[in-house]
């Protein structure tokens, strides 16, 4: 057995050229074949890659999809707040009961493992789960019990999909029950396009002219930060370096966003074309699509699209017959880590390392992938590029508002009649958006995911754009009956789980914020706790090393500002001069247990 594992792991390492950079791919393959990356496998990989076992363990232990202990077929039930508000807890209970295990455990025979996972990009069809790589949506306790039974019978997850979704979700290479839920198409993105058209027009220009066009179009990054794309490309093109890279950030991990999933499913050619144009503009010959592990079900389909474009002369060497214009793309699958959506963490992950963000400066445009100038752009941004080149910069700039050109894809989920993807012009009011989605009972809207802001009724006339309500696309609607502090707690728990742990404020501060909010919810927090909450939130925001920690206190900050009564209404006063959080009975019971004075004395 020992030699057998060694030989197989060595073969996997060989298949990836024993390359340190391919460590994530190697670990994914080992995990898939052996259902774990055991200490033994780690030793073999370390030897093959000529690195220390510690370096391998460091990467293995960072990503949720790798495990040192063996797992079975993994049911990863999404425990995002949207899923939980739409029956997720009952689905979890059904899985637990049918399998006879608790969340986080494996069945006695080791064949099935049940885990909770953060948002898998299916909030519009919640509750959802991944079973290995296969997506199951709109789960009910009944369908959960049925899935559990079928898995126990030894059936493969891929065979359990009964009804396929719309569009390319039914493609032979996808075969997913996922629905696109395109509720409102717009002129820029969700519109029919001809592969190759924008690329042909691009090749009539110089790289500098392409960058100028992207600037004229006033395109800003769609991932959330809103950095001007043309400027990013110019920095990358001008930075000294032998090689350059263009990386597409398809690590759509912000809870409540799923619009990139729809673009990847229905408009892969537009994306690849945008990347190719980007490669031409910045002088890159290599591109990477960093695809989140949760979207692995799209990998084969995307590989096929890449191959089809190579065959059509739209990708590879001498693209469209243009001598010397070479650009090709590889897909890098992630392994379960929200932080890898941060561009420098994403680059580390592409290099087979832990997904720790890098120290900046240098910025990726100066020193990115392999230390070379690299532009990292969001899926939607790159699709916009293709459309700008196909139509015109002026056409694009004429859409939307003055400061925010173009349209924006919104992923709307939660308490509304029509959850799904909407293409809207920038500058649209929140009220109009909610009306489109059929949200009539609105207690609060989380704009931009957990790292964004929670706003209430008084914000309905605010505009969706970079200068007002900025969003990477996530819009979660909460009705008046929802406990918003439960939402805040869930978001903080998410950040605690997803912090990389590199810097003090994010690693420790988020944990403390979570505990304080739990104290408020339990009704045992004092006014002093609220002051501490606010002071701590400010410290975490101001001192954290990357965007995760700089935005993770936002659920607290925005609810303290917009929904202060949530907190004020639950403040407790001192009980007999004691802190209300001090439970005298529990403390006595604990000390009695420690002293070995148990039930008999209390019974006396």
């Amino acid at each position: 057995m020992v030699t057998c594992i060694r030989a197989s792991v060595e073969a996997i390492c060989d298949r990836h050229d024993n390359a340190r950079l391919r460590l994530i791919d190697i670990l994914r393959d080992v995990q898939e074949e052996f259902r774990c990356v055991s200490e033994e496998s780690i030793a073999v990989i370390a030897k093959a890659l000529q690195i220390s076992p510690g370096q391998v363990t460091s990467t293995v232990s960072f990503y949720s999809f790798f495990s040192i202990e063996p797992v079975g077929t993994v049911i990863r039930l999404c425990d995002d707040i949207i899923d939980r508000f739409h029956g997720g807890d009952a689905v979890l209970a059904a899985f637990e009961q049918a399998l006879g295990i608790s969340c986080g455990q494996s069945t006695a025979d080791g064949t099935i493992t049940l885990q909770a996972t953060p948002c898998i990009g299916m909030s519009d069809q919640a509750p959802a789960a991944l079973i290995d790589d296969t997506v199951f949506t709109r789960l009910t306790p009944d369908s959960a019990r049925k899935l559990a039974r079928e898995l126990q019978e030894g059936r493969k997850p891929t065979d359990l999909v009964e009804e396929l979704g719309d569009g390319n979700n039914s493609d032979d290479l996808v075969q997913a029950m996922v629905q696109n839920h395109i509720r409102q198409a717009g002129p820029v993105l969700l519109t029919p396009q001809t592969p190759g058209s924008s690329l042909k027009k691009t090749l009539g220009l110089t790289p500098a002219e392409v960058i100028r066009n992207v600037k004229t179009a006033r395109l800003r990054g769609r991932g959330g930060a809103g950095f001007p794309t043309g400027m990013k490309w110019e920095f990358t093109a001008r930075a000294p370096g032998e090689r350059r890279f263009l990386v597409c950030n398809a690590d759509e991990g912000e809870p409540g966003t799923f619009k990139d999933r729809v673009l990847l499913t229905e408009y892969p050619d537009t994306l690849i074309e945008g990347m190719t144009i980007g490669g031409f503009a910045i002088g890159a010959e290599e591109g990477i699509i960093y695809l989140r592990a949760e979207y692995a079900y799209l990998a084969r389909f995307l590989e096929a699209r890449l191959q089809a474009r190579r065959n059509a002369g739209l990708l590879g060497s001498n693209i469209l017959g243009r001598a010397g214009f070479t650009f090709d793309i590889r897909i890098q699958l992630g392994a379960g880590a929200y932080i890898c959506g941060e561009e420098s963490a994403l680059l580390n992950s592409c290099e087979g390392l832990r997904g720790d963000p890098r120290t900046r400066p240098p910025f990726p445009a100066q020193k990115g992938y392999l230390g070379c100038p690299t532009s990292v752009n969001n899926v939607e941004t790159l699709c916009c590029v293709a459309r700008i080149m196909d139509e015109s910069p002026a056409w694009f700039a004429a859409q939307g508002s003055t400061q925010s050109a173009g349209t924006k894809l919104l992923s709307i989920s939660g308490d509304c009649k029509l959850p799904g993807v909407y293409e809207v012009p920038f500058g649209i009011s929140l009220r109009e958006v909610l009306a489109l989605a059929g949200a009539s009972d609105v207690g609060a809207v989380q704009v931009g995911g957990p790292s964004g802001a929670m706003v209430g009724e008084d914000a309905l006339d605010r505009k969706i754009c970079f200068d007002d309500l900025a969003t990477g696309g996530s819009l979660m609607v909460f009705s008046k009956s929802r406990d918003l502090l439960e939402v805040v707690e869930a978001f903080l728990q998410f950040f605690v789980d997803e912090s990389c742990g590199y810097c003090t404020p994010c690693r420790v501060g988020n944990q403390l914020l979570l505990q304080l909010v739990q104290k408020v919810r339990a009704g045992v927090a004092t006014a002093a706790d609220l002051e501490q909450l606010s002071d701590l939130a400010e410290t975490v925001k101001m001192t954290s090393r990357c965007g995760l920690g700089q935005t993770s206190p936002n659920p607290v900050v925005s609810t303290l500002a917009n929904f202060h009564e949530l907190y004020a209404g639950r403040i407790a006063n001192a009980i007999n001069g004691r802190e209300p959080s001090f439970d005298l009975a529990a403390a006595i019971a604990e000390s009695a247990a420690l002293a070995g004075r148990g039930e008999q004395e209390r019974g006396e």
Partner: protein
Amino acid sequence: MEQTLEFTIDGLPVTAAPGETIMAAADAAGIYIPRLCAMKGLSPFGACRLCTVLVDGRSQSACTQPAAAGMVVENDTEQLQGFRKNLIDMLFVEGNHFCMACEKSGNCELQALAYRFGILAPKYQYQFPQREIDASHPDVLLDRNRCILCARCVRASQELDGKEIAGFVGRGGEKHLAASSGCGFVGTDVAADDAALAACPVGALLRKRVGFSTPIGQRKYDHQPIGCEKELRPEKSSTTSDVQKGVAS
């Protein structure tokens, strides 16, 4: 002649060589910026965040941010010292730090910073984590209860000792230091006189059998607050606490 650039820290004019960090320039100018993970001779890491300063109004870590001509840096302000106090507090409650029983007491940078900032007890809730000790090596001990994940040992081992004795395992609150061998320090080529051990600012990575050898009164921070060695006019600092001044006098 090398070109120098000029900027200000709390209004005082400071010069720096191109590429030099704000912290290095501050040190040279006799201005103390609190720090734990930064150490002279090691590459910057930017993890503890104690050296957070405002650069033209934006927060940056002074140990990683290169100085630029004309930048306006704020360092000794009530807001920033408040953040630093909170960060020190966080490190205390995150681990299990019992100064009175620790052989690093008096030489510990975390303890010294707490005194400098007037922290007598943390205000945050203790986390009381369960952490394992690695005592596998005959001469070296890792007590993770006191580790603050500053990576000084990791960097010193690579950059000064030419070894790779340890790295980080796990994510978020689970992140911890582990020997690179995968089977404890006994499996590594660590030696008791490695720079990696001397680099530990707290009592986490220790040489065995030499604890408590320095009498009280002769330890590093028994007479002067941490940072005084860098300051031209330490008595002016807003953070040298009354507690620490009492000890010093």
